[in-house]
């Protein structure tokens, strides 16, 4: 380890400190006066649900964004980085969830890109390969470094990214969900590297949604919610339930009065008998492990879990938008053989995607065209669209969902988020679906529209639609759902029914130390269990 450029910092003086950071995007406050401090030689967990401001905080610290207010101090000196490179040069390295290296170039090239050892002005390949082999072997990666990077497993690639980052005289290493695509064994190697970094006095920021991992490797934790820090402290001895309740913004003692949402809490009389949707043993490498669930007509089934638990993946696997490695989907008892969104749609299963912009609206088309997009073939004769049929449907849904647009011809990208969401709902409802998968249907829309959407979900279920509801908002999930299937790391860890559908039960399920077939905080047991994990994956 090189001498730190600044005088050795005391154990408690922070190597990196953020004071009062604020950042807004188009009027939305992503960070509200965030204080964050990082000591050298600690592994600091940064947690929070979607939209809590984790990634904004990281981006402000590393110079991707400039803060509206507040300062970042590195070893006590205020710094303002204009881009990630400057932050890197100052000793803050970031490892992204997606490996940001060059897949077709050799391992050694990737490791030394931009600072290759040279002789006589030319790159000294022999020295470079030798150094690369030495370096990587210290990270437990023994490979032929002349092979293209992409031939390595994701874990080894992640290690190369890590080795590259740490090479740069780093004092701070930020890891944004580094374990999300790793095999259990690779996670173990990563953790031993992190431990080594810690022992060298390097500070590590560790972002993850896997509680077991946090408790295994992290010393302290900072919890963000709605752009503000709600807790910072030692992780050891800090209860899981407490942590989860902080992330979700729920005090355990605080039993919320019902009616915070527009859902009718009476529940729906589920029509018994055959489920409208039955998914059995959905498998997806690294993401889903044998997820099974069914939804009856007239019932709202909630899909609970923390960020990254595999909720969206489950929905996408059901409609065939993501390829599965196993499992089956039945609609009204009939198995779907061809797996694609189009065939799911024909069978009566539709999904409201989570990412409205990227996977929902067609921005340059009008409200009318966005509504009828999926139903076009049904509204046309010999390929010619019937304006009359269209207008009738569009008017019906614009009225029923109270879509506020100056006219059906208005461009959908000019509408508010809530109205865009209603347009998308209308797109699916005019297909007369049997099963509706809703992925975060009220995210990013204003309060009024939110209540309307919630009331609508209720109404649809009462009319006999089978609804699968994904929501990160606890109260929405609890009050909207008749039953809840709880996911964690891609597997079902609990099912709540009837009276069990309460916030407390849900949080306890989420916080539960995993049963014997899932993870545990002790390293030895984790090891044994991870082997089990691997076997189960096969």
């Amino acid at each position, binding site marked *: 380890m090189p001498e730190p450029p600044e005088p050795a910092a005391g154990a408690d003086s922070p190597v990196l400190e953020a004071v009062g950071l604020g950042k807004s995007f188009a009027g939305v406050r992503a960070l509200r006066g965030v204080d964050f401090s990082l000591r050298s030689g600690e592994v600091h967990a940064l947690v929070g649900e979607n939209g809590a401001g984790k990634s904004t905080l990281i981006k402000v610290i590393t110079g991707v964004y400039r803060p509206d207010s507040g300062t970042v101090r590195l070893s006590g000196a205020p710094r303002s980085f204009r881009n990630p490179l400057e932050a890197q040069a100052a000793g803050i390295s970031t490892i992204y969830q997606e490996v940001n290296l060059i897949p077709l170039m050799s391992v050694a090239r990737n490791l030394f*890109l931009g600072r290759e050892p040279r002789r006589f002005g030319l790159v000294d390949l022999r020295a470079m390969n030798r150094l690369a082999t030495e370096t990587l072997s210290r990270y*437990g990666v023994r490979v032929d470094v002349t092979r293209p990077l992409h031939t390595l497993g994701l874990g080894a690639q992640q290690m190369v990214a890590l080795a590259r980052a740490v090479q740069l005289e780093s004092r701070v290493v930020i890891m944004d969900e580094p374990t999300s695509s790793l095999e259990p064994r690779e996670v173990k190697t990563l953790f031993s590297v992190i431990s080594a970094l810690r022992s060298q006095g390097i500070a590590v920021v560790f972002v993850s949604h896997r509680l077991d991992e946090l408790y295994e490797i992290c010393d302290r934790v900072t919890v963000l919610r709605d752009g503000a820090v709600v807790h910072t402290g030692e992780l050891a001895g800090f209860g899981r339930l407490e942590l989860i309740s902080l992330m979700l913004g729920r005090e355990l003692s605080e039993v919320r009065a019902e009616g915070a949402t527009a859902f009718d809490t009476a529940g729906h009389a589920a029509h018994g008998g055959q489920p409208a949707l039955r998914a059995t043993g959905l498998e997806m490498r690294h993401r889903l492990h044998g997820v099974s669930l069914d939804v009856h007509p007239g019932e709202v089934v909630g899909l609970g879990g923390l960020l990254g638990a595999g909720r969206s993946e489950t929905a996408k696997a059901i409609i065939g938008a993501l390829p599965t490695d196993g499992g089956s989907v039945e609609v009204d008892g009939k198995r779907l053989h061809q797996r694609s969104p189009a065939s799911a749609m024909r069978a009566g299963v539709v999904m409201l995607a989570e990412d409205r912009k990227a996977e929902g609206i067609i921005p340059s088309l009008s409200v009318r065209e966005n509504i009828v997009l999926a139903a076009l073939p049904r509204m046309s004769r010999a390929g010619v669209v019937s304006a009359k049929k269209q207008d009738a449907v569009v008017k019906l849904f614009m009225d029923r969902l109270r879509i506020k647009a100056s006219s059906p011809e208005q461009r959908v990208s000019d509408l508010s988020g809530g109205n865009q969401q209603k347009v998308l709902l209308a797109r699916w409802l005019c297909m007369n679906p049997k099963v509706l998968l809703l992925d975060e249907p009220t995210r990013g829309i204003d309060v009024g529209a939110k209540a309307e959407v919630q009331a609508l979900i209720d109404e649809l279920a009462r009319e006999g639609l089978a609804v699968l509801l994904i929501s990160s908002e606890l109260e929405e999930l609890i009050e909207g759902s008749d039953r809840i299937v709880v996911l964690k790391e891609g597997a079902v860890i609990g099912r709540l029914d009837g009276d069990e559908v309460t916030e407390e039960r849900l949080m306890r399920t989420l916080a539960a130390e995993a049963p014997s077939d899932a993870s545990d905080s002790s390293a030895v047991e984790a090891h044994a269990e991870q082997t089990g994990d691997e076997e189960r994956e096969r």
Partner: protein
Amino acid sequence: MSSSTLNRTLPPGPAAQPAESAQAPTLRERISYQVQRRGALAVLVLVAALASALSPTFPTWSNISSILGNNAFVWLLALAMTFVITTGGIDLSVGSLYALGGVLAARGAQTGAWAAVLLPLVVCAAWGAVQGLLVAKARMAPFIVTLAGLLGARGLLQAITNEGSTTYLVPQGSWFRDLGQGTWTPVLIVTALFVLGWLLLERTRFGASLTAIGGNETASRLLGLPVDRAKVLVYLLSGTLAGMAGALGGSRLGSGVTTIGLGYELTAIASVVIGGTLLTGGFGSVGGTVCGVLLLAVIHNLIDHYFSQYGSAFTDAVNGGFLAAVVLLQTALSRMRRL
């Protein structure tokens, strides 16, 4: 950074860790890797061997020297294209710049031999730089910029030659004229340039940055590579090489021919891609390009010999067929690797 300081900055890793040796490459990976890198060479050897066995005239020195002497300068366009395609771009203007370079050289030769060398280099370098700026800074699609460049450079060429009515001759006795004569001089010049090009791509930081940009531009920026500068430079380099090729071609022909160079960009692209360089960027091979140009030259020579009644048409069909097959093969190979 010397290797010793670099070594010193490496932290001691977790030595006690049980080593994770990444799994050995699978058979499919090895096949796809080898086909990508050595496919052109293998086909070249095969075709050349077949040609030598079947045709008594093919392996003669007079035939080989005519292949080399007549084509060598045009191969520089493929060298230029290798760099551009490696970055994930494309330069459709090289054919026009080849013609422009020849005319400018002949025009410059009226003043003196040095002017004959410098004029095409400077003008074509500037042309390439402008294209590079439009691609890198104005973020316009390379194909549209260089397609406009193709048109514009032809226009400039016509303007210089009074709509093709003026033909500039390289004066007899100028040393510039000797550059393009015979077999050995062109072969030596072109070989030297290819070796330099290989060194540039494989053994310099600039070359590494070209490959990296083509492989993943966003990551390259995050890794701290000067992406915009490299892009401008690569189009500048491409323009310069095309101009140089044109000038040398003018030297060989002894005059500036305005109608030359049509469609040369397509042959250059075909040679580059056949050589294993990925048209999507991220992997470029100068050695592969050498195999590509030689392979096409051998095939064209055979076509001229056996199918001369069809003329150059057969050549184009072969170029296109090869290109389509190689592109499909590359897509299939990269899918194979991803699996």
